[in-house]
């Protein structure tokens, strides 16, 4: 025992990632989200941070650490496709929100990767609930273009960004229109102007200067389809306009974000192949672009063949402190008609596909990155919790400052001042 401890400590000192550990998760109900389907009593073998094998009869190598998953469920790590995790600490008035600003000098050129702090409080709070990956979005800007977002893992590292400049976003609903000082009629003209300018950029032609140089230079990779573009729209007519955009700029790689009224144009969305990220709780006419909101949105989109992912878009703190609630959003969609399988995909595989990282993430398959979670029950059920969370093969401790506060205040008595309880 002592020898093993010394070796581990030495390993830490040498900065060898603990992910070098071989782990076998044995005996659980494995939801692979692949052609292997659900494996009752399955094994997931993790070697060097990757999934080496998944199956019912996987031999466990000598020296592997075994996690007993008998009676438990095993899934890929949960992927929240819309957060400000790491970029926005959260509390208002603290100057700690660097996810975007209304009066910032850049819009399309904004790059969230510089804002990400791996030690932001919400990271640990979120990962102990089984969320292993997140897309960090720009939250606002002074124009319709909001800038570049990044993909992070929620593991232990000084740098958690695994794909900077992973995507870009544009707001083409009410808010975007307000930002350009006008209406949708102005916002869309602004979009066309910006794209035209960007395509003329660097060709030395005499173009209008609608955008500053840096914002202009941020657009070509979007127009060429190298960078996915997330269009924030809710209203059915706005969604149709986004679909039509693809006819004009054929290489655009579009994703719709919001789509409260998506079900009204579900067939058009399905035909376009454009995936959507929706808030499955949204069912109130909160403004004049969300009149037809319904909790059956996700189920209707699924039925029409649209790829759906979930995020707590309208929850207080839904993009930071309560990004962890994405599982409840998936469960809620099932309660309102979506299939359980697609609801789980909506927070694992579909986000990986949307962000173009499905070769590495989103399902439990040999060769993929070992984001693996073991649950004490149905992960979408409110009574369940993770018992083990592995991020790239590294098992994270199920602690956060919230669990420390919990432990400190378990017993309310005068035995010892609370400050000494740690």
């Amino acid at each position, binding site marked *: 025992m002592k020898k093993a401890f010394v070796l581990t400590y030495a390993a830490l000192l040498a900065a060898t990632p603990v992910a070098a550990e071989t782990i076998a998760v044995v005996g659980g109900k494995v939801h692979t989200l692949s052609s292997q389907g659900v494996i009752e009593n399955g094994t997931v073998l993790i070697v060097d941070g990757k999934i080496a094998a998944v199956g019912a009869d996987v031999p466990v190598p000598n020296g592997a650490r075994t996690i007993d998953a008998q009676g438990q469920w095993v899934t890929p790590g949960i992927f929240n496709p819309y957060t400000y995790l790491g970029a926005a600490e*959260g*509390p*208002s*008035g*603290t100057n700690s929100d660097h996810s975007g600003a209304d009066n910032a000098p850049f819009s399309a050129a904004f790059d969230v990767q510089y804002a990400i702090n791996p030690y932001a*409080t*919400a990271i640990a709070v979120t990962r102990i609930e089984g969320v292993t990956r997140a897309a960090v979005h720009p939250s606002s800007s002074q124009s319709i273009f909001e800038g570049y977002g990044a993909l992070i893992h929620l593991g232990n590292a000084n740098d958690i960004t695994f794909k900077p400049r992973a995507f870009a976003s544009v707001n083409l609903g009410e808010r975007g229109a307000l930002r350009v000082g006008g209406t949708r009629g102005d916002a869309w003209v602004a979009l066309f102007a910006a794209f035209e300018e960007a395509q003329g950029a660097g060709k030395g032609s005499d173009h209008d200067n609608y955008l500053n140089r840096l914002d202009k230079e941020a657009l070509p990779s979007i127009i060429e389809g190298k960078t996915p573009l997330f269009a924030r729209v809710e209203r*059915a007519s706005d969604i149709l306009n986004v679909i039509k955009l693809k006819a004009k700029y054929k290489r655009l790689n579009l994703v719709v974000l919001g789509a409260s*009224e998506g079900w*009204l144009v579900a067939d058009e969305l399905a035909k376009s192949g454009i995936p959507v990220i929706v808030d499955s*709780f*949204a*069912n*109130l*006419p*909160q*403004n*004049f672009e969300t*009149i*037809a*909101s*319904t*909790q*059956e949105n996700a189920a209707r989109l699924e039925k029409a063949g649209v790829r759906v992912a979930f995020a707590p878009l*309208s*929850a*207080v*703190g839904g993009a*930071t*402190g*309560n990004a*962890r*609630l994405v599982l*409840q959003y998936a*469960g*809620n969609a*099932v*309660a309102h008609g979506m299939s359980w399988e697609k609801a789980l995909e909506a927070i694992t595989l579909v986000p990986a596909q949307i962000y173009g990282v499905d070769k590495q993430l989103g399902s439990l398959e040999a060769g993929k990155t070992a984001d693996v979670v073991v649950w004490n029950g149905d992960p*979408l*059920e*409110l*009574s*369940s*919790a993770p018992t083990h969370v592995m991020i790239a093969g590294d098992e994270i401790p199920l602690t956060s400052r*919230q*669990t420390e*506060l*919990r432990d400190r*205040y*378990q017993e*309310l008595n005068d035995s010892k001042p*609370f400050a000494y309880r740690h």
Partner: protein
Amino acid sequence: MKFQKLFKAALMASLVGACAQQLNAESAAPVSTAAPSAKPFPSTYKPLPSQTTLIRGATVLDGKGGQIDNGSVLIEDGKVVAVGQNIDAPAGAVIIDAQGKWVTPGIIDVHSHLGVYPSPSVSPHADGNEATAPVTADVWAEHSVWPHDPGFGRALAGGVTSLQILPGSANLVGGRAVTLKNVPSRTVQGMKFPDAPYGMKMACGENPKRVYASRGPSTRMGNFAGYRAAWIKAADYKKKWDDYAAGGKDAKAPTRDLELETLAGVLSGDIIVHMHCYRGDEMAQVLDMAKEFGYKVGTFHHAVESYKIADLLREEDVCSAMWADWWGFKMESYDGIRENIPFVHKAGACAIVHSDSDIGIQRLNQEAAKALADARQASVEISKADAWTWLSYNPAKSLGIADKTGSLEAGKMADVVVWSGDPFSIYTLAEKVYVDGALLYDRANPKLKPVSDFELGQPGRGDAK
């Protein structure tokens, strides 16, 4: 209530006096001789038509910690008549076979801004905060309530049968709250919970000092000075009215002041204080202030740090209305933990689940479920039956209506929900919701799903709302 009678008498006296003066002075302006009401804006709520109903074969939670397996609930004349295992159906009763289903008292949300910040949430509808002065005890939330808010129907579909509508938390004292039955109505008076006491909203912490930073208060100490100044004036006003009541026939009635009237109502114990307050240390200071002026804090709302002072809250008999897991959006919510509700409950203090959200109100059963799961993870075992007290009985107590509703007991209002399964599961939905025995929501019957005026003719009409 003594207060109301006093100033009714005073009003009558003053009007009679005015009348006499007018006649003598041969003034042109006519004077009304109608008697003023001691209970202005009275409730006109009447239970909707109901039938004798026997719900049987369900798992019944009575709301006070009791669970009856294979249980039945008999509703007659709008009241719960019997709860038990073998109840015979009276002749002509509607029988609901609820095998595999659960039955609970209706959920009561003590913190809602439905109607005062209704959907659509556009600026012409922003009526929840009279943010023009730090103390606006004179305003009454019910005068802002739009009964056609689509949110009411959504809350009903989530099993909410009664709710308290409060002013927001911009102000030190926001004004009167109102308790409503969650029934469709053309007027707010048609929703007012009969004979429910009034509440008064207060707020501590970051909101008031941020809203009024330029003119004050701009600090927490400024907040406290603001409350205490208001209480001093209220105590003085109350004394004037008490003296008037004790005085002889020639005693002159004090001038009625809407603001001081509400504050004095708290001092006399007629009006319940509901205070938005996050930090434990601040709640402790508020409790001392309440002692300074001789009133009781009824419930702290949001109370994100109640777990830190749950023993104090139990001693002072104050309820905490909390979220399952919201935290971090303000410094005062930074220390929020998922075990807040169970730790308060474990300490023997009154724990309530609230929403403060038109989306959250639709799934308060899920909030309770999350809290229950987090309790178990922290090795605090709480039964589902006990957890339902957070949703019905404790909120009823907080609103002063626990003698009328909040639990399934013979003689109480039949505010009842039949759930499709265990209401602590994410997959469960409310199937039938009864208010005073009337079936007001039936998931299987499109005609028995309320559609507010606003939603008529809109895209999605005819949708499952």
